[in-house]
């Protein structure tokens, strides 16, 4: 965790898509926050099974959507838009709750740090 941080709380490295390498965030543009959040699995469900998801705790917080280099937003589900890779659409890599216009969260576990 330490090596991912600069100034104690900012992302020291470039945040990229795990699958296609698309740049999501440039260094020093997001702040580490601890928050418990369940996100659906990134893997495709196989017939008849529930792919489930993970409860994640470490997120990069971004306060303006234009801070992202590249990111996609899904349609709204229960007041939430999931964040996906803009180039290959894998996700969710994070989420945005419409009730808080200045909070966009990217899960550390679901992205690469380069």
């Amino acid at each position, binding site marked *: 965790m330490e090596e991912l941080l600069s100034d104690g709380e900012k992302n020291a490295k470039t945040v990229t898509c795990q699958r296609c390498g698309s740049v999501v965030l440039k260094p020093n543009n997001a702040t580490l926050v601890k928050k418990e959040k369940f996100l659906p699995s990134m893997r495709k469900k196989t017939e008849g099974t529930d792919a489930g998801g993970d409860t994640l705790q470490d997120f990069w917080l971004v306060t303006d959507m*234009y801070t992202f280099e590249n990111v996609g937003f899904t349609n709204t589900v229960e007041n939430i838009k999931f964040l996906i890779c803009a180039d290959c659409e894998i996700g969710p890599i994070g989420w945005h709750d419409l009730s808080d216009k200045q909070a966009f969260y990217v899960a550390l576990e679901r992205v690469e740090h380069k």
Partner: protein
Amino acid sequence: MDDDVLTTLKILIIGESGVGKSSLLLRFTDDTFDPEIAATIGVDFKVKTLTVDGNKAKLAIWDTAGQERFRTLTPSYYRGAQGVILVYDVSSRNSFNRLEQWLSELETFSTKQDIVKMLVGNKIDKDKKEVDRNEGLKFARKHQMLFIEASAKTREGVQCAFEELVEKIIQTPGLWESDSQPKGVSLTDTGSAAVNSCAGYCSLV
């Protein structure tokens, strides 16, 4: 936001269902991979960063995501857009014939007079061709649009299309502003309508 970003722009992708609008936004398409979340919930819009002539622009790109099937798109979809990509499928005469209606809807709802338009003849990788390249070019010229033939499958032309569109927007005075775009998900009109009209078309293929 980075200090070196020149502007943020709202770009729309419109056209009939099935012409390949959504796939224009993918950097590569992989048939063996079908992103579950995007397929089930649907993609609303994307933020993409593009550098044109050394100018860095952040684009909010909106795709109709199938809403066009239900006719018509809401006025808010068009509001504040600086650029539009109108797509037809070169293997579908019908998708080409519908272009006039799309343009008239755009003219009804767009809030910026100088909105930069690009016509994209998509799916040129297909063997079947119902719309000749010259027809596309002629239509684009008549309506003062940029023109390109493309294939999302081969990525031919797609990157060029976005770059060309952004370049043209940046060259159009009054269409964009460096600091007055509202922040957040709801992109609203900044209220400036330029009167300068710049006509032209170009071909990239």
